[in-house]
């Protein structure tokens, strides 16, 4: 971890720690704690996606599917089979990993638009399965009777407890991601993003790394899905549809793909934009959301984080022409 990153990390820990206390003392934003719980879960999805998009240079429009695989694995194992939620969570993550491996091997041989469409198609298929396997998932009317979480017999009930649990997991994943980036794998990933052919020529097993990062992203999304299941204790396929996959990509994109901080910033910001700040527009919400996205993609392709600091490598490659990506 670089020195600046270490400082930002410490500041972030402090911010996360004091935020609920601040929010609860200001009436107007007291419900922000609940929103931050969701933002934390989405951050888990987006951190994995950020590694894939920003560092490995691959797009995935299927993160909502992995989120859903984690969620439904936990839901089905605990509600139908009475498993302990903490046992169901790793099973969900492993299922997502296995599916990601199966899909990733053929899909990551594709590039650009093809990869986007392949992952998109896969995501829609998974969504259809959630809708159709009514015996297991409850179909479109949803799944109920999912237990909450408890640690050593101590039930996690209050929003505050959930908040610290979720953000604790986010910090662990964040720390792990930073270590990953500064390891051999991270250097290899950046090499892939800069120039895949050159990386391969230098002996970097580019394909293997891409698949591994894809699986990592699926696992973080599945863990987020499990947490989500036990927090809301109700599942409906509409939480895992195409629009959600697009939203995750946008969160990463809006914050800035080339930086994990950007992914966090974008996720928290867009969670609030989508669930809180745009509510005044009522039906106009979708249109405003689309407009924001368009403006960011057109004028701030490096994301909001680029307003604060220049992403590494951005100087050498100010506007990456289309052919560089594909």
């Amino acid at each position, binding site marked *: 971890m670089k020195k600046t990153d270490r400082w930002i990390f410490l500041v972030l820990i402090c911010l996360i720690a004091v935020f609920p206390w601040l929010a609860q003392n200001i009436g107007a934003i007291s419900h922000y704690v609940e929103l931050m719980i969701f933002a934390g879960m989405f951050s888990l999805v987006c951190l994995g996606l950020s590694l894939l998009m920003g560092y490995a240079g691959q797009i995935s429009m299927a993160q909502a599917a992995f989120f859903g695989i984690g969620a439904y694995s936990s839901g089905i194992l605990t509600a139908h089979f009475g498993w302990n939620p903490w046992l169901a969570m790793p099973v969900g993550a492993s299922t997502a990993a296995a599916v990601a491996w199966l899909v990733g091997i053929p899909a990551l041989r*594709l590039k650009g638009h093809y990869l986007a469409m392949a992952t998109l*198609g896969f995501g829609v298929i998974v969504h259809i399965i959630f*809708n159709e396997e*009514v015996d297991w998932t409850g179909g479109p009317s949803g799944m109920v009777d999912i237990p909450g979480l408890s640690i050593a017999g101590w039930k996690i009930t209050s929003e505050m407890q959930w908040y610290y649990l979720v953000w604790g997991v986010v910090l662990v994943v964040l720390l792990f991601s930073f270590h990953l980036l500064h390891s051999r794998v991270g250097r290899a990933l950046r090499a892939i993003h800069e120039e895949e052919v050159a990386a391969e020529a230098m002996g970097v097993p580019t394909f293997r790394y891409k698949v591994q990062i894809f699986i990592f992203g699926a696992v973080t999304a599945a863990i987020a899905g499990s947490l989500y299941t036990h927090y809301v204790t109700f599942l409906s396929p509409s939480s895992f549809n195409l629009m959600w996959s697009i939203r995750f990509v946008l969160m990463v994109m809006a914050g800035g793909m080339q930086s994990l901080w950007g992914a966090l910033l974008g996720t928290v910001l867009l969670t609030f934009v989508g669930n809180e700040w745009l509510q005044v527009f009522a039906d106009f919400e979708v249109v405003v959301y*689309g*407009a924001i*996205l368009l403006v960011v993609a057109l004028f701030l392709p490096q994301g909001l984080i680029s307003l604060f600091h220049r992403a590494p490598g951005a100087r050498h490659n100010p506007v990456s022409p289309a052919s560089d990506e*594909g």
Partner: protein
Amino acid sequence: MEKRSEDNREVISLLNGVQELFSGRKQLSVASYDGYWVSYGALTKEQTKSCGLVGSRRKGGDDGVVDGIWLGTDLLQYTASGLTVGAIYALVAIGYNIIYNVTEIINFAQGEFVMLGGLFAVFFLETLRFPIVAAFFAAVAAVGVVGFAMERLVIQRARNASVLSLIIITIAVSILLKGGAMLCWGKDPYSLPPFTSGGPILFGGAAIQLQALWVLAVGAVVVISLSFFFHRSLYGKAMLACADNPSAARMVGIRVRQMVLLSFVLSAAIGAAAGVAVTPISLMEYDRGALLGLKGFGAAVLGGLGNFYGALVAGLLLGLAESFCAGYLSSGYKDAVALILLLLVLFFKPEGLFGSAEAAKLKRF
């Protein structure tokens, strides 16, 4: 006329409820033209006819109550409905190809053009009381303007964007179009009267709706006129030149930007024509674009991206596959069929069934 359309609405709202039970889609779904068994409801024969359904089963006696309506019962029926849906996918796929050939962009908003076509036709026909032919062309022109605006306001500014940014940009446009349609038309599905009235044609045990023939006719006219456009007209040849080699095209004096603009307008208009033609059969609502677009892309890839006739054949094949799946296997998974085929083709034969592997290597993917 007035009575008829009222019946129509009644039947449609009834079907929506039934459809919800069957297809598992969200509320106010569509009475679609494929092998669904709709076994609830009490409709008179006149109602089923006015709704454009092809048959009904009477529950004894002549009390005018039916306990089942079916849309196709045998091979021939599935083939007919498959070809109809397939023609729509083929048109969407051709739309993708036109833009892709000139710009190497996959326009994720392609499906929205189809949706807008249907809804604009409803607006011109029902609100402005245009005759059907005028409404058809007005809708196509209106969506053409949308395509024009999209290129001028958005795509032109994103000339140097990366592939990833372009994907996000066209997705953002599709969200805007979908959101705009929701604001203008609301969330309910709309129907159009068929282009020509009259009962279905009975043919070898299958009942073929007249509108299905119109869909095929629109598809055929589009394909034939595009062939003429690309091979005979100066503009068409210039577009092909841009597709082949933009730099060389620019050197011989072709204005590439203009061709890019033309490709967007043309592709939007073709999508709209498909949308108007299919609305009398499957109705249209604001959020149909994404799935139509995805399946159309499936057809485009299956036929080999950029390959004009490949898209046509692949679109019809996809439609047939979907229709047979709905009929013989499971109607719930019919939407998955096209997507599974899309994945299989992408994974194992990314150059498509009719594309050449060598040509695919030259492309940016």
